[in-house]
């Protein structure tokens, strides 16, 4: 049976959040001091987002996607600089994943997705050290 657009959007967001949780484990291992504390804080935020999405999917009568045991990293993370770069990529991916929720016909889901985008875009901006004009959207 095909999932409803709302379920599909929530599952996509959950999969992105699960990837971020895994990725921040790698990021945190390469950082220290204040940066590591921020990574820990964002890791916790992504875990909480996973819990919230899991509850939303379950409440709609669907089975949440399971996290993978292992995720391929887009590049080797061997330094603090590459860890920050990975964190940017993780947050950008999460921001883009919530666009699906914003496109559903459910007003509350749209608002939820938009607010989640604001959180992950702010976290991406922290690691990037600058802001972008269109978080989550493909390059204009």
């Amino acid at each position, binding site marked *: 049976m095909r999932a409803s657009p709302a379920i599909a959007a929530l599952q996509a967001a959950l999969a992105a959040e699960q990837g971020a949780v895994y990725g921040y484990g790698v990021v945190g291992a390469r950082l220290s001091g204040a940066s590591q504390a921020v990574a820990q804080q964002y890791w916790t935020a992504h875990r909480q987002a996973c819990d919230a999405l899991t509850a939303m999917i379950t409440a709609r009568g669907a089975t949440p996607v399971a996290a993978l045991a292992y995720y391929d990293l887009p590049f080797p993370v061997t330094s603090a600089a590459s860890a920050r770069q990975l964190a940017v990529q993780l947050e950008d991916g999460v921001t883009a994943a919530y666009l699906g929720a914003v496109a559903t016909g459910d007003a509350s889901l749209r608002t939820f997705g*938009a607010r989640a*985008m604001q959180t992950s*875009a702010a976290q991406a901006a922290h690691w990037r050290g600058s802001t972008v004009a269109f978080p989550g959207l493909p390059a204009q």
Partner: protein
Amino acid sequence: MPRRRLLITSVPLVLLTAGCRSADLFAGPDPLGARPPLAPDTVVLQSVIAAELDLIASYKAAMATSGNALLPVLAAQHRQHLIQLKAKLIVPSGMQPAAAKTAARGSAQAPGPHPAGLLRAAELASAASLTAHLVSVRPALAQLFASIAASDATHADALAGA
């Protein structure tokens, strides 16, 4: 010949008795009637564009008195927002495009002694407004609003540290 002449002369008579109302002759919208209302998406988009113009005017006013290097960067991103918003806008000919509310009055928001603080408040208000508006527009427009709202939220964070 007399029959044909009778037929020709009877056509205006039919129109006359019908009252010559265009609504009776055409099945579509009355071309002589009032202009149709703008689509709901267009109305929302116009107000969002007006707010974006206001924000840009506020940045311009702030940059005139502040040397903060962050301001031109954020202002440039707002100009990018404006371009994308305008690209989505289709206004029937003869209708007024959106204009900045403050700019139309000839005075952008005064920057004051702490322009970054005022701009931060404006960015937060913009993000909240876009988030409220995106529930009622078509999906592609909702996604653009959500992305711009996220950008505005990051601007507010950046200004908090400025």
